[in-house]
């Protein structure tokens, strides 16, 4: 076997980087220092899991439920009033948005915001499959992200937003 091992390692070389990056437990959050944060956070299973925890801890579920929305808009579809990129989501979380999204800047740290964004991104079916978890240990209400595909958007009637523009 000793003869086969390095061979298979060579085979897996590209996979290596992927796997290593997905699996690091980056609790010092060096990812924040990385110059490509969307990847540093967005492709790391540990940050995704932390994001899932924070989603509950910071009461996101109270407004956005498990992505279906409620007091806040749904997060499972791919409609983003304020932009769906990681950076935009982080901005939304940290600084809030006029129509009711509160600012979390002094409630969570910046890397936590990135972790949250990572999870929210996964909710809308845009995360790498191999970093998703089948379910959480909670009441099973939504179908597993691993089996979930992005929902088609149901357009909001345009009125509802400009109804409130000053």
């Amino acid at each position, binding site marked *: *076997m000793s003869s086969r091992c390095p061979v298979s390692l060579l085979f897996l070389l590209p996979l290596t980087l992927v796997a290593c990056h997905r699996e690091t437990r980056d609790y010092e959050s060096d990812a924040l220092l990385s110059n490509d944060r969307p990847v540093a956070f967005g492709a790391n299973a540990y940050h995704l*899991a932390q994001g899932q925890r924070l989603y509950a801890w910071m009461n996101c579920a109270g407004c956005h439920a498990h992505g279906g929305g409620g007091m806040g808009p749904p997060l499972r579809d791919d409609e983003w009033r304020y932009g769906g990129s990681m950076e935009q989501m982080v901005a939304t979380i940290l600084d809030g948005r006029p129509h009711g999204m509160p600012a979390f800047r002094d409630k969570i740290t910046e890397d936590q915001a990135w972790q949250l964004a990572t999870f929210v991104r996964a909710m809308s079916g845009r995360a790498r499959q191999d970093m998703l978890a089948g379910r959480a240990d909670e*009441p*099973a209400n939504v179908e597993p992200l*691993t089996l979930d595909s992005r929902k088609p958007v149901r357009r909001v009637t345009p009125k509802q937003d400009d109804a409130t523009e000053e």
Partner: protein
Amino acid sequence: MKPEYDPDGYRRDGPDFTGEPLHAKLTETWRDGPGLLGWIRSVDHKSIGRRYLVTALVFLALGGVLAALMRLQLSGAEREIIGPDRYNQIFTMHGTTMMFLFAVPVMDAMAIYLVPLMIGTRNTAFPRLNAFSYWMYLAGGLLLWIAFVLNVGPDAGWFSYVPLAGPEFSPGKRIDVWAQMVTFTEVAALAVAVSLTATILKKRAPGMTLARMPLFVWSILVVSLMVIFSMPSVATASGLLLSDRLVGTQFYNSYEFGDSLLWQHLFWFFGHPEVYIIFLPAAGFVSEIVQAFTGRRTFGYTAIVLALIATGLLAFGLWVHHMFATGLPRLGYAFYTAASMAVSIPTGIQIFCWLATIWTGRPRFMVPLLWVVGFVVTFVIGGLSGVMLASVPIDLQVHDTYFVVAHFHYVLIGGAVFPLLGAITYWFPKFTGRMMSERLGKVGFWLSFLSFHATFFPMHIMGIEGMPRRIYTYPAGMGWETLNLISSLGAVVFATSVGIFVVNMLLSLRKGERAPDNPWNASGLEWATSSPPPPYNFAHLPIVQDHTPMWNDERPVAYGLRVEDREMLISTVIEAVPDVREPSPNPTAWPLIAAAASTVLFVASMFTPWAVVIGAVPVAAALIAWFWPKDMNHEGEPVIE
């Protein structure tokens, strides 16, 4: 027409077709093909056994390295050599490697190699299945270790308790790798178990009734049956875990009326018998070695056989003693306490018999017997601390502490590894045709014996002094530093001593003295053939009249198996009366291909459930090709008396 020809025109061995010409013919029929291809296609139990053995020993070495790393980290308080993340992976890998990739497979290895020789037949009942099992085992091991190298090493302990190992608290693929590795090794172990059971029950040489089987063969028979009953349990558990993690089923989610204790029950229903699956073959080694080195039949053959069977049965009745702290009903505990204590009775009986044999025999204190003595001195401590753990109140104190760590290392190293090393020394000449160095052997033995106790004895006290298991560091001032330091130093020496044993093996392999057929003047059939044995094991099948065929002066043999096709004798289950002559498969690569296909299926199914559907196709194809009736130029036929 020549005498060795039958009326039906097939050549068979016989009194007048023997010696060199027969040897040449049989070798041509039974040997593996040439070159790498031949190596890959081999279905010879000896080649497969050797591969199994070497692979298992490599994993032992790897596991040992991990152990050394842990002792390094724990050698002092507040050490920061290894961080928590890596440490958790390391102790998980250590346990997993040792249990799944070393302990069980190494026993399989010895059995696959020795059983056919000991019962006087030419190959196992399902040679291709054996080959398949090896490839699966290898794939599983590679999967785990490659993953570890890629930082995807499992980190939830070798027992992978949910919900910690569940989808929420173990992100990424680490646990999936663990669970899938379990699947691999389960398949491998089950395949071997089936093959060995059939071999032992149907392939014994004429006259080797059940009551005349060597004790090692008995232990393997019991163990194989235990494997068949216990392994499915853990395979189920890991399957459920995978589907929880991958497709979000709720088997272990308490919210949806799953239960995390379900995991523990399933796991320990396998996990506890596992310990005996590892120990019983070792007991078999001891019986064989004692018999050989005291020059008398092991005392209390029947008692030992019954003890083996009793252990095999009781082993399934005490898994809950791993769960005393979970708060199950107290009354139930009483039963498991009793059962856990009861299981030490059969073990006690065996020890009594071995010692009685030594007492009444004429022991030669050569290395294998030394290992046996070391085994008794060490294992009994493990057994007795086991009795303590069986007691609920005491277990509640020392459960999940270093006391338990000490206990099972005494049982597994003292009870299984010591006899194994003895057994390897004992059968080394048969494997390789050369003797191992007695001097190096003795040095190795004493060094490991002493360093072992130095390493693991202090752990009893650490445990009582309150040091929990699976911690990557501990604060200063808990009074644990000295003991840990001693233990770590001991570990260094222990590692060296194992190193010495390996060196001894390698040196002896090169230039050990040549071994005769029966260097120890032992009594078993495996010594009736040359060292190492020819591809066909026996030119003529031996006929057995009592327990110690090699100690009789005349050794009758049976004639009449074909020499140009692979043909084996099937005998009756109990009396081993020759029954049918059956063709035995030729070398083939299909087991390897099937294993490769299964590997693709298993690995891919960690990423998408569809892999199970799509991956099933190549597997099915490979199996069809494997079983396609070909080169079977004749059916089995009754024995001509």
